[in-house]
């Protein structure tokens, strides 16, 4: 169908550069939308210090001047990007602490939570997918389907609440959010691979079942699974918010929630940019790995 010669395809470095440019553009766009949303949200011009009678008229005037620069969305965003490039994300209005400091102290908690959750969810999802396709025992299939169905049916916030009430490990919640996606995707891939003629031919040649499974089922499925890995980071980040809020973990998710309730502009815009960057970077790495695996 596609008659383009191989020489016309971009090299790996070209593809990496294309992904990097795309990531940067989407990031700038994301930051701009975040700033736009926050700038025109109600309460933007309200400062509780206006109501504090301890401030003199001159002080209130200075506060108004300080905020006046933020009223123009473009100038606000340009100034923000300039400062962010130097590592200065501004000062949190609700907590009166530099945003970069807040993010630095909380990033570790979220990274650990998401890392453990991803490892758990992938292990569980791949394990169940292999077990249900490899052995095809009705008990395994029914159990994994039921578990998968229940995991898909409950929002991470509810699972977090149940885990919290039963004093279970919190990373379990992220794992449960990831597991059904990995399980269904991997199982479908494995089942499709099992129907390929190579599998039948290998069986007819008397190749051991375990080897057939590794060589003709698991190996071709790696590339699409890498693509799923990028998406699962985004799912894990989304699930981390209710987990951190409900289980009182001082991570980035809890910070986002607190900032949202306090309408803390610098914190929310910074977090929007960081979350966008992480998920886009994960997707870009997965895409590049997928293209590399295919070539």
């Amino acid at each position, binding site marked *: 169908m596609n008659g383009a010669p191989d020489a016309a395809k971009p090299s790996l470095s070209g593809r990496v550069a294309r992904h990097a440019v795309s990531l940067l553009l989407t990031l700038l766009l994301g930051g701009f939308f975040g700033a736009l949303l926050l700038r025109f949200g109600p309460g933007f011009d309200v400062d509780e210090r206006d109501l504090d009678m301890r401030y003199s008229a001159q002080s209130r005037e200075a506060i108004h001047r300080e905020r006046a620069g933020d009223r123009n969305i473009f100038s606000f965003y340009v100034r923000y990007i300039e400062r962010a490039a130097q590592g200065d994300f501004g000062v949190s209005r609700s907590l009166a602490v530099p945003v970069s400091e807040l993010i630095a102290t909380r990033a570790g908690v979220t990274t650990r939570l998401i890392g453990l959750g991803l490892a758990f969810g992938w292990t569980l999802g791949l394990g169940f997918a292999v077990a249900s396709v490899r052995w095809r025992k009705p008990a395994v299939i029914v159990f994994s389907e039921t578990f998968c169905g229940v995991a898909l049916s409950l929002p991470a916030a*509810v699972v977090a609440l149940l885990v919290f009430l039963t004093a279970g490990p919190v990373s379990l919640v992220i794992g449960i959010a990831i597991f059904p996606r990995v399980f269904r995707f991997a199982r479908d891939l494995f089942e499709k691979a099992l129907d390929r003629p190579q599998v039948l031919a290998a069986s007819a040649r008397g190749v051991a079942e375990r080897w057939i499974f590794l060589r003709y089922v698991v190996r071709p499925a790696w590339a699409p699974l890498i693509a799923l890995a990028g998406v699962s980071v985004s799912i894990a980040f989304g699930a981390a918010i209710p987990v951190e809020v409900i289980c009182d973990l001082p991570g980035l998710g809890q910070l986002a929630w607190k900032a*949202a309730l306090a309408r803390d502009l610098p914190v929310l815009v910074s977090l*929007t940019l960081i979350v966008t960057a992480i998920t886009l970077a994960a997707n870009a790495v997965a895409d590049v790995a997928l293209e590399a695996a295919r070539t």
Partner: protein
Amino acid sequence: MIWIRRFAVAFLGLVFALGLAADWVAPAPYARQFRAEPNAPPSREFPLGLDGLGRDRFSRLLQGTRISLLLAPAAALIAISVALLIGGSAGFLGGWWDHAAMRVTDLFLSLPWLFLFLTARAMLPLNVAPSASIVITFAMMGLLGWASSARVIRSAVPELLSSEFALYARACGCAEPRIWRRHLLPHLRVLLTAQFWILIPVFILGEASLGLLGLGVAEPLPSWGNLIRELESVPALAEYWVLAPVLLLAAVMICFQLVKTGRGVQTF
């Protein structure tokens, strides 16, 4: 397994019907307080007991079912309309508009949806009338949840535009709006219906998550989200009857999955 799907459809129909008839079926108004006995355990009069403010949990669950189940399809309808507008126009016009629309779609897809809802909800007034909070919650989900459907529609439109029946219609002198109305939209209907069914449970879960975080439907109006939030103030799980909203949510979501699987809809 067809009987399981039939059971799922029947169960969903029953829950929808109970939600619609909540005003008649519920033993008490959702906000009425029985102040003499707050936190009362289940009894014949109150099948799920009373909450901390002395309100009948069963009545609130029925009213919450109506809000959560009836407004999620409305939000899905908004999302599908936006997706059709953005995805359809991107596929039809192509060029720079296609690139720009898909870049925005990528952005919406790359952000964790709960983060997006949280940020957008926080930008809207928090201290609003309960009825306004319903509109805000579901309209916001509808307006922000279009991205995945837009991508699907975007990839389907060019294929349909280059299909034989569209070429034939064009060769016969059909104008583009007529081709859209008479040929493309009927073919897209199956796709749009599938996306609609995919989005309903997503929005039900979205409302539950927002409600649990205190950013969904405002009290005293009940919804599944703020009913589940009551679990936060329960000592361990000794009062197991407060799990009723969680169990109902899980049952409804499982039924949606069974129905979707029966219709051949892929969720991932």
